[in-house]
């Protein structure tokens, strides 16, 4: 494990975090839900941040529920630890092993004016809830609930949480990044946090947002990413990207775990005199084009990076939109550094991944185009 991590440079990120350098994670806009701005912070990891958000969600709204496979004992990633003890088995519970059932149930619960917070154990297993079994609850049901009823009904209280992405040893079915599928579905929101502080604030916003949301948690960072997180109830805005590093030569756009890799590439590029602006998209649907557009108008260059396969990835959508808006300002083709067009491969994971050096090479090629 340690070897894999070093290969991808994520260990570097964490040791940095331990040394107190957390620029990547610091957030500019924390809006306290309670109006209490003076809350203390604690250094916690990402799964603990998710856990805190769930505690707050259940505590602040008695009509909220948390459920999914193995959620009762704390979940396989420990995100739901302590919830059943504190809020009881009627509000926090195990479901049968049936993703289609979990999401269908959650939609019904949400449609009756509740907050249904459903966990899918791995995003790789969200497909039965997506398409395989024919019911298509996420795509055909959740996403169209409001629209098809002329706004008589909605399931806005629905939030589906699922761990996503590479983890060093997950192979085909414990590593996928399927965000692009969901970004093709009008009616749902897609949100992916990069760090503990972001995870807590964004998750609370998703839970309280009046639209169905899928919230993908970077499982590689569950334990690895540690930062100071306010202990109080706060929310971070949806559909607002965040510039997490300012620069003038090229704009980099990413989300989730990939940002830490991109941040390292930015640091390396700086040594070669290239100034990179790094943007965390945070919400992929509906996404904040304005922030990306403003940045690209300034830098004249754009690079997008994600773990999902490059073909049909969300990077393609960003690229097309920015070319439409910034065509005359672009000084080089938009670069994409992404996963390969193969299933996620176990032994070949280091080859598949959009690594720091692949990004760095693409930055240099784009800047000297």
């Amino acid at each position, binding site marked *: 494990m340690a070897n894999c991590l070093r290969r991808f440079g994520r260990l570097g990120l964490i040791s940095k975090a331990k040394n107190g350098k957390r620029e990547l994670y610091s957030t500019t806009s924390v809006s306290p839900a309670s109006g209490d701005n003076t809350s203390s912070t604690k250094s916690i990891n990402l799964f603990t941040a998710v856990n805190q958000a769930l505690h707050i969600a259940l505590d602040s709204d008695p009509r909220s529920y948390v459920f999914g496979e193995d959620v009762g004992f704390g979940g396989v990633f420990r995100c739901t630890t302590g919830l059943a003890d504190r809020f009881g088995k009627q509000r926090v519970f195990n479901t049968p*092993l049936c993703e289609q059932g979990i999401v269908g149930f959650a939609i019904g619960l949400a449609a009756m004016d509740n907050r249904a917070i459903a966990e899918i154990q791995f995003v790789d297993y969200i497909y039965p809830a997506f398409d395989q079994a024919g019911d298509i609850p996420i795509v055909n049901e959740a996403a169209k609930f409001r629209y098809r009823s002329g706004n008589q009904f909605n399931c806005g209280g629905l939030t589906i949480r699922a761990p996503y992405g590479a983890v060093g040893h997950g192979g085909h*079915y414990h590593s996928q990044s399927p965000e692009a599928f969901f970004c093709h579905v009008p009616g749902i929101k897609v949100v992916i946090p990069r760090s503990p502080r972001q995870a807590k604030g964004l998750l609370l916003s998703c839970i309280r947002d009046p639209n169905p949301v899928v919230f993908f948690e970077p499982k590689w960072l569950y334990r690895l990413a540690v930062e100071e997180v306010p202990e109080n109830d706060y929310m971070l805005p949806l559909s607002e990207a965040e510039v997490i590093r300012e620069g003038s030569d090229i704009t980099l756009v990413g989300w989730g775990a990939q940002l830490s890799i991109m941040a390292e590439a930015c640091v390396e590029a700086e040594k070669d005199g290239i100034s990179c602006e790094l943007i965390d998209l945070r919400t992929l649907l509906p996404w904040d084009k304005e922030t990306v557009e403003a940045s690209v108008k300034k830098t004249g260059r754009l690079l997008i990076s994600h773990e999902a396969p490059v073909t049909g990835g969300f990077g393609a959508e960003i690229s097309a939109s920015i070319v439409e808006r910034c065509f005359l300002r672009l000084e080089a083709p938009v670069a994409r550094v992404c996963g390969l067009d193969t299933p996620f491969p*176990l032994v070949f994971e280091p080859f598949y991944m959009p690594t720091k050096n692949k990004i760095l090479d693409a930055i240099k090629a784009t800047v000297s185009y």
Partner: protein
Amino acid sequence: MFQSVDFPGGRVAFTSEMSFIAESSEKRVKCYRVLDDNGHPMSSRFEQVSKEVAVKMYSSMVTLQIMDTIFYEAQRQGRLSFYLTSNGEEAINIASAAALSPDDVVLPQYREPGVLIWRGFTMQEFANQCFGNKADYGKGRQMPIHYGSNKHNYFTVSSPIATQLPQAVGAAYSVKMDRRDACVVTYFGDGGSSEGDFHASLNFAAVMEAPVVFICRNNGWAISTPTSEQFRSDGIVVKGQAYGVRSIRVDGNDALAVYGAIHAAREMAIREQRPILVEALTYRVGHHSTSDDSTKYRPADEIQRWKISRNPLARFRKWIERNGWLNDEDESELRDNVRKQLLHAIQVAERTEKPPLEDLFTDVYDHLPSNLQEQEKLLRDTIEKHPQDYPAGVPV
């Protein structure tokens, strides 16, 4: 004269009595068993097993047990990234395999490597998969324990639960159309029975009259979820009738009962061209996998009870020992042998190089499309530029 109505599916009688069908029958469905706790046959009427087959069954169970112990240990030592044992379910694994013909096509879940042991998949082949080296038939692409072997009629394991079940029905329909003297056998857990795919598969199998045997390993747990939070029916066996599928419940820790039930199920599936559902009652003695600690959610004495007093190997051993087919000496020789084979296999598998880089790109399609050709070329340039980023074990 009783009044009745002709309705699709047959005549339905009318009644003036309003009565709802109960949610469960008064008594739970009985469990077929041959050997009692002490390994004595409860009756003389059971599917007989020759000395040769019985000894092979016992040896295979022992082999599976030792393989689990050694691979589990290797994972703990950090040599394997992941492992998952079949502890406690050795009888289902081996006795079901023994009752099948090698031509029967198997679609596994993941806790049935014993079927492969029975069919002659070697310790080296298991180790190659777990280490993901170039001799692994899956070319290092999947996590450990995702075995598959075309020559053994054993489909490759896929992690998503229950997806194999409707596929098994399709495969069985092909076997039917080809008029082969074989059936398809598919395995799943109690958890898997909650998936939509399970229900689709039973219904399809009944309607398509597919020769498929569904074997449910009801081991009480799906990771941390007990069966009481999985379903409220009397287990899996009763679900057969609702779909028009014949079913039986069997003691999964009784090798002779499993053997007999699967033998009969196979006969009926092929002769009558129909699906059969078998629910084997057992217990997952090990943790779910190396990523799990089951003492967090279940009592230690429950595990101990199943491990010791309901051990499937111990019960079967008593029976074959009483038949004079095995003694302590044979057994210790067997154990030594298997252990040596395994340690050797692990050493070899660990030393064998990883699959070559081109295997990253092949098999996505039958031929490499242009996007992958381009990506392979780009990747090779990157590797040349940044060799330090890539593991040395993979030949490029």
